[in-house]
């Protein structure tokens, strides 16, 4: 009986012109988004590889120079983007694509794709994630608002119930017919994405994440189907059902997802970059001045070096004092910067937690977080890139400083120079470590849990609605 109801409902949906029109629109949107996402992916990837090569060559071409000079010449870390970013770019367009790595200072990432744009940048382009989270629910509303509401639906329902079909069978049959459409779209997206993933490296990992992402979308859309069918069952009038569902869509897809990050950002404000730099510089100066405040900084570092190497005169030092100073200062400045950037990360985490509270009002917040976590396009993924770049920077600069320190001046040749290309060769170029699913899981599961809770609540709502259905007709 259930299959008959599903078939019947599917036929009705298929015949509905506006549903067909909007479904075509969604499919076109997904096709364009996939094309655009893939083209961007290819462009970014090739640009990054080329830029890494130029950066390495530029470093090596310096030849024999002073290590500290080379540390200021610096290098760059370019962000590698996961293949699933073509489905869900997350915050990629709003975070930097590269980090400058140099001595004394930890730079944040710069150069985001939306920089130097016009008013058009205020409107985000189509993405598969956007199509599935914002527009697909709208199509579902249009397809499902009159499932049980409205005069004709009520008359049909009377006949069906009189024929002995249970309200449960009717409700789940109609809900599953809607879910069938959703499943088809998800399979289509998954199929195309899987083909693209096959061309890349580590497709197995990509497949697992794609499956998890799509499973999340499946739960999200199932939740919406349940809510839509439930509301339709609760409302006698199709107009009231449609208005209520459109209002829910507006609040859940547009207002709450936009308000949540804004409220979170205002509740836990992050200082601007110049302020952070100012604070970090102050912390660095304070840590330099700690100890004997009567001495100048130069004198203090000199005393420190003499004490460390157990000598009384600078000339007797077995190391280069300038190199020693650079190494010492780099340790302190890195500590200062890391502490201040860690505070920023703590604020981000608080903002994320507050946003999660808002997912009680909108499952879209949860699905966005879930999807971006597996696509590695969330803030946490960006933080991983920044942390890896910072670790590389510190190691690069300290290798140069240690080499400088280990070469005390000989005679009158004050300036020490070395082949920095050869010196840094063992460190290699910057690479972003591949993160396993087990590392992403702790970030993703709270959003997944919220989605499951939403789906359970929606199923419970439908059950309540269906119990009342028989009595209301």
């Amino acid at each position, binding site marked *: 009986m259930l299959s008959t109801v599903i078939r019947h409902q599917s036929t009705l949906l298929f015949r509905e012109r*506006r549903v067909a029109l909007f479904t075509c629109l969604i499919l076109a949107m997904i096709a*364009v*988004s996939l*094309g*655009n996402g893939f*083209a961007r992916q290819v*462009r*970014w990837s090739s640009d*990054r590889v*080329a*830029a890494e090569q*130029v*950066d390495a060559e530029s470093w090596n*071409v*310096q030849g024999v120079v002073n290590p500290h000079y080379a540390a200021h010449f610096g290098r*760059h870390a*370019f962000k590698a983007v996961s293949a699933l970013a073509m489905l869900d770019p*997350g*915050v990629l*367009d*709003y*975070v*930097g694509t*590269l980090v400058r790595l140099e001595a004394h200072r930890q730079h*944040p*990432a*710069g150069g*985001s*794709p*939306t*920089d*130097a*744009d*016009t*008013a*058009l*940048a*205020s*409107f985000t*382009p*189509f993405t598969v994630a956007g199509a599935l989270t914002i527009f697909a629910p709208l199509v579902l509303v*249009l397809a499902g608002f009159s499932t049980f509401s409205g005069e004709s639906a009520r008359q049909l329902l009377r006949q069906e119930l009189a024929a002995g079909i249970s309200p449960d069978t009717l409700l789940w049959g109609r809900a599953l017919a809607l879910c069938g459409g959703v499943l088809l779209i998800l399979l289509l997206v998954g199929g195309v994405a899987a083909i693209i993933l096959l061309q890349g490296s580590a497709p197995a990992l990509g497949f697992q994440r794609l499956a998890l992402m799509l499973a999340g979308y499946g739960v999200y859309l199932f939740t919406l189907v349940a809510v839509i069918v439930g509301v339709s069952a609760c409302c006698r009038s199709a*107009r009231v059902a*449609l208005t209520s569902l*459109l209002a829910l869509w507006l609040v859940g897809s*547009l207002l709450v997802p*936009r*308000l949540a*990050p*804004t409220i*979170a950002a*205002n509740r836990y404000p992050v200082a*601007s*970059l*110049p302020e952070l730099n*100012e604070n970090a510089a102050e912390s660095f100066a304070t840590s330099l001045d700690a100890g004997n405040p009567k001495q100048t900084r130069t004198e203090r570092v000199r005393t420190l070096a003499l004490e460390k190497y157990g000598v009384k005169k600078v000339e007797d030092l077995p190391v280069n004092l300038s190199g020693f100073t650079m190494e010492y200062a780099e340790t302190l400045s890195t500590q200062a910067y890391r502490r201040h950037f860690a505070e*920023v990360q703590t*604020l*981000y985490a608080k*903002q994320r937690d507050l946003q999660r509270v808002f997912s009680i009002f909108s499952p879209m917040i949860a699905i966005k977080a879930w999807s971006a976590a597996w696509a590695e396009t969330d803030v946490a993924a960006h933080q991983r890139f920044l942390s890896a770049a910072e670790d590389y920077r510190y190691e690069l600069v300290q290798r140069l400083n240690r080499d400088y320190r280990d070469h005390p001046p000989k005679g009158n040749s004050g300036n020490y120079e070395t082949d920095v290309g050869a010196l840094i060769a063992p460190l290699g170029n910057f690479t972003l470590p591949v993160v396993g699913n087990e590392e992403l899981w702790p970030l993703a599961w709270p959003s997944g849990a919220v989605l499951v809770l939403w789906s359970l609540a929606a199923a419970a709502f439908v059950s309540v609605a269906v119990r009342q259905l028989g009595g209301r007709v």
Partner: protein
Amino acid sequence: MRPFITAFRFEFRRGVREGVLPALLLLFAVAVVYAAWNGRTWRENQKAAREAALRDTAKFRDEVLARYASILERTPEKAPNTGMLMVSVWYRPTIPVAPLAAVTVGQGEGYPFDLRFHPSNTRAIFAARPITIGNPEARAVGRFDLAFVVVVVLPLLLLAVVFDVWAAERESGVARLLQAQPVAPGLLLGAKLLARGGSALLGFTGILAAASAWTALPDTSLTGVLPEMALITLIVLSYGAFWLLLARAINMVAASSSQAALAAGAAWLAVVALIPAGLSTVRDLLQPAPSWPAQTSALRSAEVALERRQKERAAARGPASSIDRNALVLKSLVESAEDQQLLADAQASARQQQDKRRQWADTYRFAAPSLLVQDALERIAGTDAARANAFSDQALDFIVTLRDLIQQHLRDGKKAASVREYAEIIPQFTFEEATVGERFGPVLINFASLCGFSAVTWLVFRPKF
């Protein structure tokens, strides 16, 4: 005219009695107040960021001046000339936050707000990126600012008031009765539309104007932003008028309230989301954003070439002790101008690509009223691309002027008598706002285009009863 006034009064009173109008006005006021407060917070943060940047530069400048004070105190005869001072400090032109920036964040975070450079080293200008460390999630979903309220929320609320202004009468059969009266139905429809939508629009515009003025008040007087306020009012009224006329058109064809609601919803979705997002996607495909890694590579290659060139110059000069310091600085300034050109050339293709992308967006902004409004509000608020580009152009011009001035001072060999005098000689960058015509010309074009949209809607969908 009398039937019009009677119908207007009746419809207005009905709207007030039903509580729809006051409820929507209250809802709108809440959204506006939150958006204005939000925008004002953002603007205050931007000001704090600029002040911190300027403090950093001033600190370095003070250190240099302290050295000069020490020289003047110990060996006044060895005090360097004023040109030397000018060449030994860093400069940091900064674009001021516009008084109405709280109206929309716009492109306020998409361009660097300061450009730090040294007269003989301008690399930092070319490597400058707009860097914000605020949570990118807020940027990704879009800011809840006044522009969002105008572009997205205002049409929604207007449609909520008028979506079934005639369709409901048609559905209930009242339309036939009204048509039987000796009054032109078009007149009745106009009166109903104005009573419901027009009064709502006026209320919304008033609330918006008051909120916009409030955001500007800490920095300027109300009279200081009167032209901007007038333009905001014009843009909001014309945008609202477009939606009211669109609602009229929908009511001409919709047979029932449900149909009218669906059509109005679809129109809202298309104008506010689908067309702009579609254009944004098409632009990404046709005019992709220049790649920052590629730009960085080009700059890096240019830097390597510069390094080589500088080594060759140093070798040609011979030992530093044999050259007069004044002459050396003069030469280095000329050379840095050549170097700057090399860096500019390295970024020329990316800049061209960016210009083309901006031109494309400027051209196709006429495709949707929502784009026109967003663009107009950004220009009025001073968070637009044109102002940011004007700033970087002025900063580059400042470098040229500064170099000429330094060269002149170096040649003159003029010295100052006190640190204060030295400090006063250091040139300061002042951002010159564009003229009224340059600033508001495009806004008026957008206004005219919005009127055009309304006129087309008015003419194409004439009432047929």
